[in-house]
């Protein structure tokens, strides 16, 4: 996949005149800052004025299309590359317990559009009739309750922005540069505005019995995916979600109802939610013993490692892109933390020897993607870019070297929140610079 850098959605036609203008403009800007080096390579010159008359293309000389037959709008056909991508670095031999990844390199702003929001499922995506769907709350409660979707949607609602990241995000790239693009390395990450009901409200209505301390959440899909969650988290900020970015959940993201546990690994936010059972201890399901546990030195496994710790990645420039020449670039990307808000992001262009603070773009919300921007004048020499985030607990995003010192990096290792480098070669090509 050879990606050009993302342009504005309404980029004018790429005429020869415009390209020439951009190239010579970039050359001038590069030359101004790093005169000595650039001066050898290219002469100082004002870019030649555009003399070719601007095009009046056919779309200005004809009528557009009327309201289309399909009343749900789709992106321009020129944006056809902005799609989810099935996991293809780690390749599953079947397509029912699988995942697909978000094209972060093309995401403008902190909200991931629903059609490209990453998804992972364990027995395919079910198509659930909301009229027939039910949510049950039982176990250590005084009054077991059942809800229809209409019941749930009648409650006062809350809408909150939260990121969602799979525990396995970046797992292919611990020790080698396996991924080409940021979609492959970090695309199990997305962010949305979620609408639903605090789970605590319904648990309070059901009435917790003494001794209640864990809660089992279970999906209605063919995998009947399930996890045990500490009651404290559920009462704290768990949401029962039916809305996502202004519309109903997409089927692949849990339609008609899912759990959302802010800041925690994606798989605990059980999709297609059908059952909540209050208990006094975890069930130790396969999904919290044989899977979603992290190898540690000494043959051990870390269990119930729910929080996605502070992490960041540069999405532009990123792997698979090619910079057209020296000059100004805005390095940008996302930072997020399951433990709170992002307080700083630093950027390096020399492989970590020196760092400078990036600008954080508001809103800066807890457990939400935060956009960072850093203006960089590339001199045309090879550069190694990376970002490093700090969160409101004071935690500084570590290097993989630091993580590997205390964890066992062997096999299918989750919870990779290490600093991730991209190399910009002198010809402008951007590649994965892990190891």
């Amino acid at each position, binding site marked *: 996949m050879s990606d050009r850098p993302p342009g504005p959605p309404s980029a004018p036609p790429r005429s020869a005149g415009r390209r020439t203008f951009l190239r010579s403009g970039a050359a001038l800007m590069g030359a101004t800052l790093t005169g000595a080096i650039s001066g050898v390579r290219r002469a100082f010159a004002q870019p030649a004025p555009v003399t070719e008359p601007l095009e009046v293309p056919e779309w200005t000389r004809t009528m557009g299309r009327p309201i289309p037959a399909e009343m749900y709008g789709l992106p321009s056909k020129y944006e056809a590359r902005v799609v989810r991508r099935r996991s293809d670095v780690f390749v599953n031999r079947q397509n029912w317990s699988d995942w697909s990844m978000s094209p972060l390199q093309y995401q403008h702003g902190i909200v991931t559009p629903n059609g490209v929001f990453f998804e992972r499922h364990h027995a395919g995506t079910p198509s659930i009739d909301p009229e027939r769907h039910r949510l049950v709350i039982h176990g250590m409660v005084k009054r077991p309750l059942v809800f229809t979707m209409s019941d749930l949607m009648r409650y006062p609602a809350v809408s909150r922005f939260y990121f969602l990241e799979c525990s396995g995000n970046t797992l292919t790239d611990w*020790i080698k540069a396996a991924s080409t693009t940021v979609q492959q390395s970090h695309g199990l990450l997305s962010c949305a505005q979620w609408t639903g009901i605090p789970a605590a409200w319904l648990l309070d209505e059901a009435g917790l019995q003494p001794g209640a301390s864990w809660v089992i959440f279970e999906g209605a899909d063919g995998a009947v995916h399930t996890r045990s969650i500490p009651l404290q988290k559920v009462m704290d900020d768990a949401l029962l979600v039916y809305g996502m970015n202004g519309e109903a959940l997409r089927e692949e993201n849990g339609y008609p109802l899912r759990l959302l546990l802010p800041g925690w690994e994606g798989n605990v936010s059980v999709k297609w939610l059908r059952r909540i059972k209050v208990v006094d201890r975890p069930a130790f399901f396969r999904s919290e013993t044989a899977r979603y546990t992290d190898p540690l030195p000494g043959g051990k496994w870390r269990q119930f490692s729910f929080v996605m710790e502070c992490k960041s990645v540069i999405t532009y420039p990123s792997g698979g892109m090619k910079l057209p020449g020296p000059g100004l670039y805005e390095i940008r990307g996302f930072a997020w933390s399951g433990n709170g808000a992002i307080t700083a992001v630093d950027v390096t262009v020399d492989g970590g020897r020196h760092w400078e603070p990036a600008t954080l773009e508001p809103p800066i919300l807890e457990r939400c993607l935060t956009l960072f921007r850093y203006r960089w004048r590339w001199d045309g020499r090879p550069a190694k870019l990376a970002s490093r985030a700090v969160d409101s607990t004071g935690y*500084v995003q570590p290097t993989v070297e630091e993580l590997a010192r205390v964890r066992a990096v062997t096999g299918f290792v989750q919870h990779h929140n290490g600093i991730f480098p991209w190399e910009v070669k002198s010809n402008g090509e951007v590649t994965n610079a892990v190891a």
Partner: protein
Amino acid sequence: MPSLRCRRALVGLVAGSIALMTTAGLAQEPQVGRPRAGFGRPITEQAIAPWNIDIRTSDGAGLPPGRGSVAEGQKVYEAKCIACHGEKAQGGSMYGTMVGGINSFMTDRRILTPGSMYPYAPILFDYIRRTMPMDRPGSLTSDEIYAVSAYILFLNGLIPETAVMDAQSLPLVRMPNRDGFVLDDRPDVRAVRCMNDCPPIGVARR
């Protein structure tokens, strides 16, 4: 003590609210916190039973009646599981091995199987019942699930060929990785926010 001005403002606010309530019928509901809704309907545990399938795997609470032997399990396995998981659960067209790996966790190539990884044997029953076979989840009888669990445990050398698994015997199977887990103790690294003359970004080594 609130100041006089404060008290006046408060009195005004309360008076205003009363006026609003009486004239427009507003502000009777608390505007934050749990609403007085109660839109759920009561339901009996009997009605929930078809969905109430979770097993407390550490002691087997919730395991249903039924039983299955290793030999019966082999028959079920060869009819319904072998296509994806392969001969003798050693890996097939879709998935890797479900046998072996015990003692592999001290090496740098950990092999994850039910035998090596599960801390409690009833996880087999819970997981098979919830998910298997993948193209017809939930279609196995309890006897068949006990039997397949027995067969997988036998192939992993954890029970004898003559064993029969049921709600009493399955939780008693001692799994090698029972004490292999530690609770989340992160943050496990404390990185420093170095800005100048820092060591270059390191790499992870096995």
